[in-house]
């Protein structure tokens, strides 16, 4: 659209015009969704195919590194023999229980320490010191305290999760902008109301960052402990496959662990979304 006023000695024009996004917003949104999905599924698939090709071509020793097809076959066999489900279930129970307990206690400590300075002063150095101790190193202690069985595993996961949630909750509480609290004061909020309506919602996004990190770490610890203790569980499946040279089983275990981690973090993300409807766009938790 040439015009009356743009005929001077200019040499460069800048045009601001609608792009595809503006001209066909629905199609654009659909395109983005499709692309995201295609990339999310396509990239892992592509890597699996490459791996398969490398195995088939003999670039990789199949006996040491089974191909994706071999792994799927192993998984199917194990499923048929009913030898995967009980281990998966045992692992899920341990992680779930440890995660919930650790998160609850961690959040409690985080809130208390974030809100009350004396408690923070009393516990901060101690917890910081303990935080750096590798939790797996505590296993012997836990075995002594809780005996063999489920309890030490659950406890170890809970302790690990605790530290992540404690730190993220405490720092989230401390980072709540003063303006929110000041407005609350003028609204005559009680301590509980201030917590429920101001501090908690303000801190929630950061707490959920901790929850997502802890979800991954809890699976990490789970597998480590099951490695050492044996008996059952996904870690045991992996370790047993290695010692008995049934490497297909080991890889099935690894894949299942990865899937558990994926589903776990997706569930945490979903809960976060449901709990924080105001936090829809551009939030940290959404981009994680």
């Amino acid at each position, binding site marked *: *659209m040439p*015009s009356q*006023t743009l005929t*001077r000695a*200019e040499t*460069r024009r800048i*045009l601001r015009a609608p792009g595809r996004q503006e001209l066909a917003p629905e199609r654009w949104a659909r395109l983005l969704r499709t692309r995201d999905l295609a990339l999310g599924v396509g990239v892992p698939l592509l890597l699996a195919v490459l791996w398969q090709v490398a195995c088939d071509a003999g670039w990789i020793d199949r006996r040491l590194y089974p191909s994706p097809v071999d792994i799927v076959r192993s998984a199917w066999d194990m499923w048929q023999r009913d030898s995967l489900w009980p281990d998966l279930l045992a692992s899920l129970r341990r992680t779930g229980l440890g995660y919930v307990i650790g998160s609850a206690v961690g959040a409690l400590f985080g809130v208390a320490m974030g809100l009350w300075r004396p408690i923070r002063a009393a516990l901060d150095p101690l917890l910081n010191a303990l935080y750096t101790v590798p939790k797996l190193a505590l296993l012997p202690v836990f075995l002594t305290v809780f005996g063999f069985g489920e309890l030490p595993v659950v406890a170890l996961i809970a302790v690990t999760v605790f530290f992540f949630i404690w730190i993220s909750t405490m720092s989230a509480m401390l980072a709540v902008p003063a303006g929110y609290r000041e407005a609350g004061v003028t609204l005559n909020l009680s301590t509980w109301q201030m917590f429920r309506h101001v501090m908690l919602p303000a801190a929630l996004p950061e707490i959920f960052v901790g929850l997502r990190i802890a979800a991954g770490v809890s699976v990490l610890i789970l597998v480590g402990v099951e490695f050492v203790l044996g008996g059952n569980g996904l870690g045991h499946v992996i370790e047993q496959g290695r010692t008995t040279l049934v490497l297909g089983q080991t890889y099935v275990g690894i894949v299942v662990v990865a899937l558990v981690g994926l589903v776990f973090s997706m569930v945490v993300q979903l809960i976060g979304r449901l709990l924080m409807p105001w936090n829809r766009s551009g939030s940290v938790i959404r981009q994680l």
Partner: protein
Amino acid sequence: MPTETAAILAEGVRRDFGAVSGLGPLDLTIDDGEFVCVVGPSGCGKSTFLRIVAGILRPTAGEVTIATRGDGKVPLSMVFQDHGIYPWKTVEQNVRFALEVNGFGRAEARRRTDHWLGQLGLAEFRTAYPSTLSGGMRQRVGIARAFALDPEILLMDEPFAALDAQLRQVLQEELLGLWQRDRRTVVFVTHSLEEAILLGDRVVVMSARPGRVVRSTEVPFERPRAAAVRDSAAFADLKAQLWDCLRHEVDAYLATVTGGTDA
């Protein structure tokens, strides 16, 4: 008076937000070297228009053509209502960084930074972080950054809105002086008619949402203009005229806001 620098031509510009029509269709021509003030009721899309010109947002329909000399000068820079300066950079870094990323050499960037921090009374705060400054000083950092870039077109989105009345007046006068010494195209969005009349060559009144141009009035006071024009009868007269026009739109805006679901 520069006559061959830049101009902005908006034709049928619209912007929808979801199902809500936020702006336009808006037609507006801005000559080079012209200082145009845009006023309008809340939510009429005046900031949206500025953001479209700035390239932050694209129009849903229509287009804006910006003609520039293209001689290596920065074509556009913008002063934001909420400063738009970075808390992790000092006052000086905020300005110098903008220059360096825009291709100014180190020495030149330093020289311009010094000059503009001085002009805006920020010299002694150069190493301070924005969080330690008052709102007015932060805004001046934003202004210093935009001016230091020496753009062909300067976009200002209610730059003084968050300031107290005294500081606002001082900065208006500073801007008036700066512009008269060193003229360029300015699009200045404001809520204040007085500000618009004091600063602008022309005042454009926009309608309630979706904003259109309902009136475009040349400001008759000659340049260089002094802040004292505020006290003249002609000033009050023009203000009353424009207010008549604007009030009508504000009432329309209030009707949509208080009139329930009709957006």
